[in-house]
């Protein structure tokens, strides 16, 4: 049975009805067509599905859509300012912080949040801050470089 939900995503308000069991990630992908947020595991460990709910990163595979009712959600589609990439997006591009790109939206969301709390992270702090996100392609070296680039750019 559908339950009504009202949620703001990337600044736009959506009103829908959802089956209670619908996970937030499926709501975003299937219902709203925001397919930038990916699913990589089913044990809340890979971080590919990371989005922000009310300014905090969460794993959207481990949250019911209904738990976000009334919240403001930001996904990878809402990170750039129009055509202007965010510093984190730019860092990932400049520093080759991605290869296949599948983990990248989640990585960018996690890095964005990290820098919002700690604008000048050390290498160790970057690594600790992104430990909830797995990448199988880059060996993480250039992801660290990408976050450093973004931090410098934002300073």
């Amino acid at each position, binding site marked *: *049975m559908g*339950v009504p939900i009202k949620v703001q995503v990337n600044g736009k308000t959506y009103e829908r009805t959802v*089956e*209670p*069991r619908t*996970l937030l990630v499926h709501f975003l992908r299937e219902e709203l067509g925001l397919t930038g947020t990916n*699913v990589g595991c*089913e*044990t*809340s*460990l890979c*971080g590919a599905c*990371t989005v922000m709910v009310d300014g*905090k*990163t*969460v*794993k959207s*595979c*481990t*949250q*019911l859509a*209904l*738990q976000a009712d009334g919240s403001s959600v930001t996904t990878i589609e809402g990170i750039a300012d129009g055509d202007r990439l965010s510093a984190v997006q730019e860092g990932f591009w400049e520093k080759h912080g991605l290869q296949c790109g599948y983990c990248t939206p989640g990585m960018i969301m*996690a890095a964005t*949040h*990290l820098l919002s709390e700690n604008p000048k992270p050390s290498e160790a702090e970057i690594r600790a*801050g992104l*430990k*909830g*996100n797995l990448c199988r392609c880059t060996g993480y070296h250039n992801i660290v470089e990408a976050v450093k680039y973004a931090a410098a750019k934002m300073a």
Partner: protein
Amino acid sequence: MYPAKFDYVRAHSIEEALQLLSQHEDAKLLAGGHSLIPMMKLRLAQPTTVIDIGRIDGLRGVRRISGDDGDTLQIGALTTHAELAASAELREHAPVIAEAAAAIGDAQVRHRGTIGGNIAHADPASDLPAALLAAGATVHLQGPSGTRTVPASAFFVDLLTTDLGMDELVTGVEVPVRGEGTGQAYLKFEHPASGYAVVGAAAAVSMRGGECTAASIYLNGVCATPLDGSAVAAKIAGTAADDATINAAVAALTAEDPLADVYASGEYRAHLAKVYAKRALKAARDRA
């Protein structure tokens, strides 16, 4: 990846939650969802009703309360791990809890997981239980017949089993403000896959005039419930708590029926327990 069907109801007060809990068979309480939803996605849990208590007012945050037996910190059950880790009150007065909370999972998990949900689930590899014990915490419960408090030491009953009744919910945790000269520490050997504690040691050591007046050490991950190291603590209290004393004392730590999995055998866990007990006690002493 796809939970089975269930009915969803949202509780706006503790009373409403308790009433819903009594009305629905096979109901599960949902706070942050970081214990329940993973189980539901794998269909290891298939509740018919999910009662969302995540929005109940007044169950979130850390407050300092003055009492007859000294000051305590009241932690609301819906306080997230991230809030615990960042709480100035906890970092000052019960740092072992802030430190254990910071060691949980990752940033995203800490943003959603709650202390109430965590302890109600009672995963033996979780980080908070031993820290609550080392800090001398008490768990506050509420049921149809009113509220009650249980010392953390009596709350964790068995693997994934607590003293929480089917018709009750956790409303909060109360922690005494640490005394003058008391140091606390949480150290963890992290599972390389899950990020849970293979062993997590929570220690508190009180020093006065170069003498240890009290010590406590509890460990996550070793047994079905937090491993009680009071035999070790007893050998340290009354000494100068120097390295040699601590090194010798941890020999008294014995783990009955240690947990074992593909990654770590019971014997290894029992060994790590000693190593981490030692390291946590020293760290706590150094901070005392």
